[in-house]
């Protein structure tokens, strides 16, 4: 199977000298198109740092990340930004929706950053809001929506640039159990496809059932990868 993301010997530390702390120590793994890949572990295990390096946000001290046959950390800063815009969709833990923009305008942001026409972007955003079940909320500000609805807006924003890789940071942390499950169910049935890989960082064991594979981390290292479809690796 063709890997969507390939991480090789990724290492990241913060600080220097006595203050030097390793967040990720020589991690290698592959995530594939058509799967939901969970990265789990206790706080401070390095999962967010790992996710940031994979998505082109945090430069590793050593190692490589290959996406679409391209070592992303060999790119220049503007090219990495372009890569994120075109290849990666982010759903942040706190959603980071703009309270002063309408829901549709929030969803349209990636297209606007791609220099697409404003009105055309808003129309397309309305289409994605329909996909996530918020057809009638396009003109509302995000603050008028419930937590679950805001999560869906964030998903629509991540989807609109049709990314190969979708990254969720603690997607259910701010949601109650039922809403969290509904969101994950929606992600599994409507967002995942054969040309997309979904990486999820989470603490929430209640949603582990939606994972195809779960990578467990501790102290910046992989302690195991569980294949939920075929048993442990």
């Amino acid at each position, binding site marked *: 199977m063709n890997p969507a993301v390939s991480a090789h010997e990724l290492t990241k530390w913060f600080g220097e000298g006595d203050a030097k702390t390793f967040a990720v120590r020589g991690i290698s793994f592959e995530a594939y198109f058509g799967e939901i890949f969970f990265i789990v572990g206790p706080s401070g295990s390095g999962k*967010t*740092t790992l*996710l*940031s390096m994979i*998505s082109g*946000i*945090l430069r590793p001290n050593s190692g490589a990340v290959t996406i679409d046959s391209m070592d992303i950390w060999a790119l220049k*800063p*503007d090219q990495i*930004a*372009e*890569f*994120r*815009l*075109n290849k*990666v969709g*982010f759903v*942040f*833990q*706190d959603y*980071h929706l*703009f309270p*002063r*923009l309408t829901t549709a*305008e929030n969803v349209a*942001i*990636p*297209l*606007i*950053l791609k*220099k*697409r*026409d*404003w009105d055309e*972007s808003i129309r397309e955003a309305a289409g994605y809001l329909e996909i996530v079940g918020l057809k009638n909320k396009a003109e509302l500000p995000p603050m008028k929506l419930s937590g679950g609805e805001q999560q869906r807006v964030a998903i629509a*924003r991540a989807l609109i640039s049709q990314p190969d890789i979708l990254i969720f*940071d603690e997607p259910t942390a701010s949601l109650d159990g039922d809403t969290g499950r509904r969101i994950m169910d929606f992600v599994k049935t409507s967002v995942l496809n054969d040309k997309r890989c979904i990486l999820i960082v989470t603490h929430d064991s209640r949603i582990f059932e939606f994972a195809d594979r779960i990578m467990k981390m501790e102290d910046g290292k992989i302690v195991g990868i569980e294949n939920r479809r075929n048993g442990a690796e």
Partner: protein
Amino acid sequence: MNGTLKLAFKLLVNDKGKYAALLVGIMFAVFLMVQMTSIFSGILAKSSSTVINLGAQVWVMDPAVNNVANSIPMPDYVLDAVRSINGVKYAVPLYSGGALVKLRSGVFQSVTVLGLDDNSLFGRPELIAGKIEDIYAENAFIAVQDAEINKLGDIQLGTDFELNDHRGVIVGIAKVTASGLFGIPTLYTTYSRAIQYIPSTRFTISYILVEPKNNDAISHIKEQVKLLGYEALTKEEFMQKIANYYKYQTGLGTNIFIMTIVSFLVGLSISGQTFYTFILENLEKFGALKAIGAKGHELVYMILFQATFTALIGYGLGVGLCTLIITIAKLKVPDYSANITYTTLAFAFAMVLIIAAISSYIGIRKVLKIEPFDIFRG
């Protein structure tokens, strides 16, 4: 509008409270800066009103003269000497002095009296009532229709008054380009009548008004006048000398300058602080934009656009408010001196751009420092 800039625009104006605070800050600063500099400009224009109204190209005076109202009389031979300089087409004497007139009502009123050369009436004003030749009539004076004329009572052709036990009669009413600074009416008469009616020193010529044959002759005239121990200045130089006097020798310029700087600082602190708060509140969102794929320079453009847009709108509102206040003030107080000139507008515009630049610099530094990783870390 470019999509990214439209995004910046919406982020800015949809935050109505902050946007209003930014506009008020800049509007207030612009209002104060334009108001201060306009008042100063108005005072300078009025202080040179005699120079502007008489329109002579070259003025000869005692070097100690620093403003038009404080002339130092020159002996008659200076006039003859100036007339004999090569390049002088003609030269005429001017009397400029203050006097106290007693009106029919018994009220005493200070006036400025300008005595024009009897032969040429050089520098005569444009009349809106009466005939200029009537200035040669007995006791004839011409009153200037400006903000101060009402201080002479209900003045008409034939209105008479008393000046140093002499009778004076209004034979004409004139309009002038600029009215005076000191809030007193102006009367024109002939040079000979002026020195006859008004008690004066041994010398009587306040200024010599010179018409050079051509512009090239001016420097020669100036040199020759200097050899006489006097000073010849072009109209512009004389106005500049008067302006310098008010700027540097009266404290007026320093006070206006300090007030303008204070206005600038007030505007800068209000706008800078509000813009900084605006950026701080949106910092995570800018970080999210970075994470999504916005490039650093795109965020810089967005912030520059927000700061510049706010500055321009605030500038427009400030200038509009200032214009409104000055217009109302001039309607209520006719001799209110404030002129909004292109220079004052350009000065305020430059100051506003500096405010925008400093405010956006603070914001840009913050936004460029925020790492998308910080968004993930929360």
